[in-house]
C-alpha cells in the first residue's frame, strides 16, 4: 500500500481559443495515496476541473494534454488507448459532477442509471447492482432506500439527487472518485447533508478522492491535504490543518480572508427615511400554489436590507412582486408612501426609473449584441434624453464609477470577464439614477475575490450616492458583510427580521439558527460539531431535514 494510487507529473494542458493554443495547466504535479482525500481549490479558470478530468485520461473538446504523465495504479492514463480507458472509467475511477440535475437523464429512473455502469462493465448483473444501489442509498442516508431508485430524477430533491450521484459513482467500488464542485449548486443547509454523506462514504470504503471546489471552508471539512491552484499553476500544497492555520503564500491568505468586507456608513442626507414599504404581500404563480404569504418588509434610504433564505423560500419572488413582474394577489407596495401599481406596465416611467434591478447571471442580463456604451447609454437616452457627446461623457463617468476605463465602451459582453459584466450591469442600473436597487444574488455566480470586489463597489456607491439596496442572497457570509437589516425567509414567509446585529446575535429564531450554523467555517472539526447541533434542532422538531 506504500505505492501512491495516482501520480501526476508535470501535467501541461492546452485549450484552443481565439485560433491558438493557450496553456490552461502549466506543469502541475501531485500524488495521491489510497484512501486519501486531496482538496483542489482555486478560482474559476485555475484549471482545477481540467486536472480533475485529466486524471481519468480525458480532455474536454478543444483541450489537449500536451505533456506530462498521469500514472494511475501503474497505467499511464495520458497514453492509454481509448479501450483501456473505457475499462477503467466508471469501474476504477469515477466522476461526480457539479450539477446532478444536469447529469442524470431525466427520462430514466434513478436505478436504471445506477445499474448501467456495473452492468455494462460486467462487474455484476442487474439484480446484484440493484441490491447494491439499495445498500449505497442507505449508507448515503437517503430516505426510503428500498424504493427511491424507482423514482425519476425530478422526483427527488437537489440534495438527494446529488447524494444519489455519489452513490452511483461508488457502484463499482472505484479506487478513486473525482468530485467536481459537488455541493456548489446546493443550499447551505443541504450542502451539509451531502458533505456528511460523502465524508462517511469515502471513509467507510477507503476510497481515494480528488475534491475540487472554490470554497476553502468546504474543502477543509473533507480533505486530508489541500492544493491551491491559480492560473494553472500550483500555489501551495499542504496538510489541511496547517493550510488553514498557517498558510505560506499570500494568495492562500487572501482566499482565507475574503469573508470580511464590512465598512462603516458614511453620512447620507435623509438616512433612514422610508423608501419602500411592502405590506402583507401574498402572491402565487398561475397554478394556485402560494409562493409568498403575508410578506412585509421596509427599505429606508441609504441602507441595505438583506433577504436571506434557501432556494424556494420566495426571496426572488418578492423581488418580482416589487418590480411589478408578478402582480400580488393581496397586499400593497408603497414607494415614498405612494402605492405602486401592481403591474410594471401600469407604472409611470419615472417610477420604473427609480427602482432598478441587478441580476445573478450577468451573462443573460446583458444583450450579447449590444456594446457596453449602448447598454449603459440606453437608460440615459430614455430617461434623461441625453444624446451624442453628453451621453458619451456620462457613460464615461459611469464607467469610472464602476472602476472600468473608457476603453470598455466599444466592447461586447463576450469580451468581458464575469466580474466586469456584473459591473456593467451595475452601471446600467446606476445610469437611471435610482433610489432603490434590487440585487438578486449578484455575487453568487462569481469567484470569491471577484465577488468581494463587487460587494466593496456596491458599498462605496451607497456611501457616495445614498442609494438603497434590497439584497437577495442565500449566502450568509455576504449578508454578514454588507447588510444593515436582515429579513429571513422560509417557505414563502418572513420568519424573522430586524437590524443585522440583532439577528446575528443569539438567541436566534430556530430557522435562522439552522441557517447560520450551516455556513461552513474554516475549521476541520466544524462539520462534526454542526451535525451534533442539527440533531438537537431536529429533536426539537424545528425543521424536518430529511425532506
Amino acid at each position, binding site marked *: 500500500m506504500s505505492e501512491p494510487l495516482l501520480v501526476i507529473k508535470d501535467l501541461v494542458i492546452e485549450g484552443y481559443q481565439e485560433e491558438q493554443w493557450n496553456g490552461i495547466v502549466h506543469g502541475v504535479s501531485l500524488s495521491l495515496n489510497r484512501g486519501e482525500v486531496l482538496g483542489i481549490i482555486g478560482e474559476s479558470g485555475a484549471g482545477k476541473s481540467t486536472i480533475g478530468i485529466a486524471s481519468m485520461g480525458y480532455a474536454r473538446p478543444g483541450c489537449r494534454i500536451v505533456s506530462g504523465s498521469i500514472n494511475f495504479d501503474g497505467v499511464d492514463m495520458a497514453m492509454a488507448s481509448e479501450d483501456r480507458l473505457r475499462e477503467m472509467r466508471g469501474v476504477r475511477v469515477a466522476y461526480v459532477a457539479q450539477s446532478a440535475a444536469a447529469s442524470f437523464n431525466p427520462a430514466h429512473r434513478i436505478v436504471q442509471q445506477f445499474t448501467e455502469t456495473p452492468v455494462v462493465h460486467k462487474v455484476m448483473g442487474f439484480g446484484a447492482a440493484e441490491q447494491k444501489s439499495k445498500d449505497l442509498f442507505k449508507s448515503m442516508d437517503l430516505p426510503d432506500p428500498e424504493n427511491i431508485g424507482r423514482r425519476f430524477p425530478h422526483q427527488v430533491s437537489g440534495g438527494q439527487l446529488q447524494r444519489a450521484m455519489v452513490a452511483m459513482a461508488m457502484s463499482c467500488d472505484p479506487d478513486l472518485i473525482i468530485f467536481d464542485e459537488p455541493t456548489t449548486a446546493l443550499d447551505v443547509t443541504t450542502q451539509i447533508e451531502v458533505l456528511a454523506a460523502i465524508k462517511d462514504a469515502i471513509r467507510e470504503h477507503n476510497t481515494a478522492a480528488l475534491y475540487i471546489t472554490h470554497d476553502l471552508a468546504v474543502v477543509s471539512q473533507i480533505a486530508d491535504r489541500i492544493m491551491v491552484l491559480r492560473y494553472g499553476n500550483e500555489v501551495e500544497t499542504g496538510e489541511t490543518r496547517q493550510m488553514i492555520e498557517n498558510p505560506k503564500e499570500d494568495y492562500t491568505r487572501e482566499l482565507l480572508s475574503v469573508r470580511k468586507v464590512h465598512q462603516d456608513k458614511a453620512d447620507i442626507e435623509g438616512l433612514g427615511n422610508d423608501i419602500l414599504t411592502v405590506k402583507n404581500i401574498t402572491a402565487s404563480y398561475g397554478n394556485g400554489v402560494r409562493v409568498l404569504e403575508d410578506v412585509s418588509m421596509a427599505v429606508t434610504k441609504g441602507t441595505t436590507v438583506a433577504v436571506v433564505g434557501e432556494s424556494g423560500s420566495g426571496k426572488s419572488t418578492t423581488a418580482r412582486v416589487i418590480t411589478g413582474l408578478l402582480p400580488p394577489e393581496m397586499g400593497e407596495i408603497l414607494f415614498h408612501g405612494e402605492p405602486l401599481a401592481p403591474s*410594471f406596465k401600469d407604472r409611470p416611467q419615472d417610477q420604473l426609473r427609480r427602482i432598478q434591478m441587478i441580476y445573478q447571471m450577468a451573462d443573460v442580463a446583458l444583450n450579447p449584441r449590444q456594446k457596453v456604451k449602448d447598454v449603459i447609454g440606453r437608460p440615459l437616452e*430614455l430617461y434623461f434624453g441625453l444624446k451624442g457627446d453628453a451621453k458619451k461623457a456620462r457613460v464615461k463617468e459611469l464607467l469610472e464609477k464602476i472602476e472600468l476605463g473608457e476603453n470598455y465602451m466599444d466592447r461586447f459582453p463576450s469580451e468581458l470577464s464575469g466580474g466586469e459584466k456584473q459591473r456593467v450591469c451595475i452601471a446600467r442600473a446606476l445610469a437611471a439614477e435610482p433610489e432603490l436597487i434590487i440585487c438578486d444574488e449578484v455575487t453568487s455566480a462569481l469567484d470569491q475575490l471577484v465577488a468581494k470586489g463587487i460587494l466593496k463597489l456596491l458599498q462605496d456607491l451607497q456611501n457616495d450616492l445614498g442609494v438603497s439596496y434590497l439584497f437577495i442572497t442565500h449566502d450568509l457570509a455576504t449578508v454578514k458583510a454588507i447588510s444593515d437589516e436582515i429579513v429571513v425567509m422560509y417557505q414563502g414567509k418572513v420568519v424573522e427580521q430586524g437590524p443585522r446585529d440583532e439577528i446575528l446575535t443569539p438567541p436566534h429564531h430556530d430557522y435562522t439558527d439552522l441557517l447560520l450554523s450551516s455556513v461552513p467555517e474554516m475549521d476541520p472539526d466544524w462539520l462534526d460539531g454542526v451535525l451534533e447541533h442539527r440533531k438537537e434542532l431536529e429533536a426539537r422538531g424545528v425543521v424536518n431535514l430529511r425532506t
Partner: protein
Amino acid sequence: MNSALKLVIEAPVAAKLGMIIVLLNVLAAVFAPVIAPYSETEIIGDTWEGGFWDSEAPEHDPPALLGTDHIGRDLFTRLIYGARNTIGIALVTTMLAFAVGISLGFLAATLRGSVDQIISRSVEVLMAIPTLIFALMVLSVLGTEVHILIVVIALLDATRVFRISRAVAMDVEVMEYVEVAKLRGEGLWWVMRHEILPNTMAPLLAEFGLRFCFVFLFIAALSFLGLGLQPPTADWGSMVRENAEGINWGIIVPLFPAGAIALLTVGVNLIVDWFLHKASGIRDIE
C-alpha cells in the same frame, strides 16, 4: 466593411464557390440587357437549332451559343433575362414573406396570450392546406399578374417564417436582458427591434437563404404548370416547360434552364450552410 471583406476571404472553399455562383447570377440579372446578345423576345432562327456543340447548326451573328428554343429565340439571351425575372421576383417575395413572418412571429412571442393564440391558429389553418394547391386555387381566381403572384407566395411562405421566428424569439424573450428592457419602460417595438432581432439574426438569415431557394423553385413549379409568369416573359421554370417536349427528340435545350435552377439552388445553399455553421459556432463559444 473591412470585417465583411475579411469574413469573405476567410470563408471555406465551398462557401466561396457559392458566393461566385450567386454573384454571377446577380450580375446576369442586373446587366441582362448589356450581356444578352439579342432581345428577350426576338426570334432569330428555326425551332431548336443546335448550339456550340452542333457543327451543322446555322450561323448567327452574334452566335447563338446555346442554340434556340421552341419558337426560335436565342436560348442564352432567354436564360439571362430569366435570371433577372426569376431571381428578382423570388427576392421580393422572400423579403415580403420575411417582413410579415418576422413581425407576426415576434409579436406572438412577445405578447403571448390571446395574440399568440389567434396568430398561431390562423397560421396553422393556412399551413394545413397544401401550398401548391392553395396557390393554384388563389391564382386561378385572382389572375396571374406578377404582383398577385408575389403577394400570394409571400403570404404562404410567411407562415413558415412565422413559425421559426416565433420559436427563436421565444428563446430570446425569456432572457433577463429583455426583462430589463421591459422594466425600463421600453415600448414593444423597441424591444423587438433592439433586443430580440439582433439575437435571432443568425438562424433567420440562414432561413432566408433556404426560403429564397424554395420560393424560386415554387415560382418555377407554378410557371411549369402555366400559372406563374406568363409568356413571353422569360423565366427558368416556364422555359423548362416550354421546351420539355424537346427531350423526346433528343434535344438538350430544356436542361439549360433546369441546370440554372439547380446551380443557383446549390450556390445559395452553400452560403447558407456556411452561415449556419458560423451561427452554431457562435453558440459554442458563448
